């Protein structure tokens, strides 16, 4: 049975997602239970697969028994395993958070559809992570995106609809670019299997066809990952989405987009592909640096907590892309570590924002006065996650940013180092804007409806934040894993 795990990982949530909305009312009432069971099963499958992928180096599954490159191949290497585990874990956390949060933000009759979309979303992400076929990648990107649009539209204010619509338009343009890019690559190499493309493309690296395909793919994926300046859909979407959705999207959505980008740049193409007319590294690194600073500065100016967190995402995504652009072993390790760190921490932060919104109705940074005393656990989780994101020593964020900065030094990119450090500092400053009034101001007039949120919401937020600290202390394990994944990706022994 173990050998079927890759297929099951995608099919289980997909089937559950389709069945929930069309089942009788009695079943619909337990939509959450079905979703959570599916997510938990996915986590178990992912854990097992990850273990196998790290032990063997690669797990492969042939769809319909057809051998690649003719059939669709699912393959999981350590990098995929890392992302798989992360996605499954955050989905579980977001779902358990949703149990109390979703009914507070959504009408009861829409809940089954909501859970169904969440499952569809993870199914799509899982597919993106484990597929070895580039067209299949496109299909899964669209499945995840469609579910994402629907999830964002579920926000309680009408602005959510506009945010979702704008995201849909941009996302569809991105997807069409990706499709076009795939078409060009197929024209040039005559295959869709990623591993096969890797072998066949080098003979035609010099052609314009390949270059065009590559450009379309990278631009399309940049929109999906919200790389500055293609991030404009992100702040509205994250701000107006229901808080479990913001948490899930911020933690997994953009991360998997980055994963797809890394796959295209490093798995489909070889490092030798270095278009002389277009200095790839410089462009990507430059945009990433600009994004780090821009996102942080704009976050600094925000008064809405969720919007601040959204711009913070733009900044942190810059870090991840930066590591990929520098693309030496150390920086790539840092990039992967930052994917993990940012996913866990941003999920926790959005969950905390949701808890605060639910308990006090506070949306603005100024409304948090004295909250540290009244909601100690929530604010403790928030603070810990913020520290980790800012890269405080002994948190996961320090490890990732250390690797990124060291990678930049190793690559001789001296100008990048101050950007990394200044970005960190700005991160600390904009989180400070929230934390200081919470702990060091007399209580404001907003009284929480209840002192702390229900345990179901609080537990995942605290757990995720605690994980950030734990990963910072026991950094050996993630650093080793990310290092291994990076080494395989870059072809270093």
């Amino acid at each position, binding site marked *: 049975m173990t050998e079927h795990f890759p297929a099951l990982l995608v099919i289980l949530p997909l089937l559950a997602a389709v069945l929930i909305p069309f089942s009788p009312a009695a079943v619909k009432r337990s939509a959450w239970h079905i979703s959570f069971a599916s997510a938990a099963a996915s986590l178990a499958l992912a854990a097992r697969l990850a273990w196998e992928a790290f032990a063997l180096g690669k797990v492969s599954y042939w769809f319909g028994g057809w051998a690649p490159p003719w059939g669709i191949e699912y393959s999981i290497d350590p990098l995929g395993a890392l992302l798989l585990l992360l996605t499954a874990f955050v989905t579980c956390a977001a779902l358990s958070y949703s149990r109390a949060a979703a009914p507070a933000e959504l009408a009861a009759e829409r809940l089954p559809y909501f859970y169904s979309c969440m499952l569809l979303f993870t199914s799509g992400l899982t597919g993106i992570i484990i597929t070895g076929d580039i067209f299949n990648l496109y299909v899964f990107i669209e499945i995840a995106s469609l579910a994402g649009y629907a999830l964002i539209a579920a926000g309680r204010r009408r602005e959510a609809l506009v945010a979702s619509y704008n995201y849909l338009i941009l996302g569809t343009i991105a997807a069409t670019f990706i499709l076009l890019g795939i078409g060009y690559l197929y024209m040039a190499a005559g295959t869709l299997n990623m591993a096969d493309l890797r072998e066949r493309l080098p003979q035609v690296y010099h052609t314009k066809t390949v270059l065009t395909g590559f450009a379309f793919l990278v631009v399309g994926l940049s929109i999906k990952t919200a790389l500055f300046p293609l991030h404009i859909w992100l702040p509205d979407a994250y701000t107006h989405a229901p808080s479990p959705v913001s948490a899930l999207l911020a933690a997994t959505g953009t991360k998997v987009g980055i994963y797809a980008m890394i796959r295209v740049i490093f798995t489909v193409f070889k490092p030798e592909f270095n278009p002389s007319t277009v200095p790839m590294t410089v462009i990507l690194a430059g945009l990433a640096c600009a994004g780090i600073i821009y996102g942080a500065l704009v976050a600094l100016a925000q008064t809405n907590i969720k919007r601040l967190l959204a711009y913070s995402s733009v900044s942190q995504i810059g870090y991840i892309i930066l590591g990929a652009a520098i693309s030496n072993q150390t920086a790539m390790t840092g990039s992967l570590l930052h994917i993990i760190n940012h996913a866990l921490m941003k999920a926790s932060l959005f969950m905390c924002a949701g808890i605060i919104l639910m308990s006090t109705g506070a949306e603005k940074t100024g409304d948090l006065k004295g909250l540290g005393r009244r909601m100690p656990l929530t604010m403790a989780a928030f603070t810990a996650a913020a520290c980790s994101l800012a890269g405080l*020593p002994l948190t996961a964020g320090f490890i990732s940013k250390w690797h990124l900065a060291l990678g930049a030094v190793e690559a001789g990119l001296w100008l990048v180092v101050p950007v990394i450090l200044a970005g960190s500092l700005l991160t*600390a400053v904009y989180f400070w804007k929230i934390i200081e009034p919470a702990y060091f101001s007399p209580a404001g007039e907003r009284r929480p409806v209840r002192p702390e949120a229900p345990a179901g919401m609080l537990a995942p937020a605290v757990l995720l934040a605690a994980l950030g600290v734990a990963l910072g202390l026991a950094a050996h394990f993630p650093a*080793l894993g990310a290092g291994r994944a990076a080494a395989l990706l870059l072809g270093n022994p």
Partner: protein
Amino acid sequence: MTEIITFKPLFAVLASLAAGIMVSLSGGRPALREAWTFAGAAVKFAVIASMLPAVMTGAQLLTPGLTLFPGMELRFRVDALGLIFAGMASFLWILTSVYSVGYVRKLGEEKQTRFFACFALTLSAAAGLAFAANLFTAFIFYELITLATWPLVAHKETKEALSGGRIYLVYLLGTSVTFMLAAILISYNAAGTLDFRPGGIFGAMGPGHKVLLGAAFALFIAGTAKAAIMPFHSWLPAAMVAPTPVSALLHAVAVVKAGVFLILKVVLHVFGTDLLSELGFGPPLAWIAAFTILAASVMALRQDNLKLRLAYSTVSQLSYVVLGAALLSHSSIKGAIFHMAAHAFAKITLFFSAGAIYALERKTKVSELAGIGRRMPLTMTAFSICALSMIGTPPLAGFISKWYIGLGAVEAGQPVFLAVIGASALLNAAYFLPIIYQAFWGGGETAAVESPEKGPLAMLLVIPLLLTAGITLGLFFFPGLLLELAELAAKG
């Protein structure tokens, strides 16, 4: 050199941490809370003192390391320099605790639990920095000191306190994150290790990499804003919004000394004096320090607020240590290390006095102090002794440190710095002597009121400052132990 594996340094760090946790747990009961503080302070000092004999023999005490990931290790190592810093801080913590109890009760400060808990946490961090075996550990505890002291600076939660706290954070965190972390990155990339090693870690690289090493050194110095070298000194006056015990222990001892301690560490154990003099990095730093010494003294002259005057005096005095380190000669470094301790005892007395004057007489300005020496003779006598030590007159501890630093300047072939020391002594006299004169002989006839220095609470304030003043005096006559440790430390 013998190395002894032991958990003692870890215990020294944990003692105050545990005290801090117990303090925050026993929030409602002041007596119990303070008992924990004293217990923590006593245990901590005892543990640190127990390491003295081994260190005196030249051995190094080493804890097992906790490797976070390859190249990043949390580990403690005790040498003479660290022992001086930790011993000084933990000893003064005991006295400050006594003083704080009197101070916060007298003034009825709020949120005393947070106050004492953060105090304990800061001391933990200071010990952690003192015993750090590598740059990574040092960096962590250096940052922890900032974060743990921030609630103390912003303690009053007034607008002024919060903005002072913000300046404090921006300067200390800002410089350490941008500059020091960059310096650590460069060092790690260049040397492949972050361990503190006597003689430096760049051994093989030598002067060939002058630009790289110069950048690293400059970044280290700029990153250590706690040493308050100009232009990174503004946080120290801003932090004076804190309650006086905080200013006393933290901004005369733990925090600022953490800065100069780290600079000494960088000079001695990251670069090594040989490499630095080979590269010629000493004189620029010495000149910056000399400028800070003089400029800060001039600024101190212009302050009417007593605590601010003391703050600028601290800025000036800290640069003596930096100057001693920058001269790179054996004597000057010895003098710098000695000055670290001598200044700590003297400056804490001055702050204690300022706090006692505020708590008992509600006076904060220099211009209000006329005649106060007659009402508070004990306090002002102690104040005078320590002010004289600052100036560097014998028979006080300040004289010894300045003597060695001056000797070092001659040794290093840069006697010009003797003039700096002399000029600074004059400036010090210019801003301290008028206070003393006014206190004892100034002002008109004051009505014979009862001295405020009576009563148990007032005694809690006065006894610690008399003790520290006594030590400042005693260090001149019995400098043996401290000098021996400084000698050991300067040897590397």
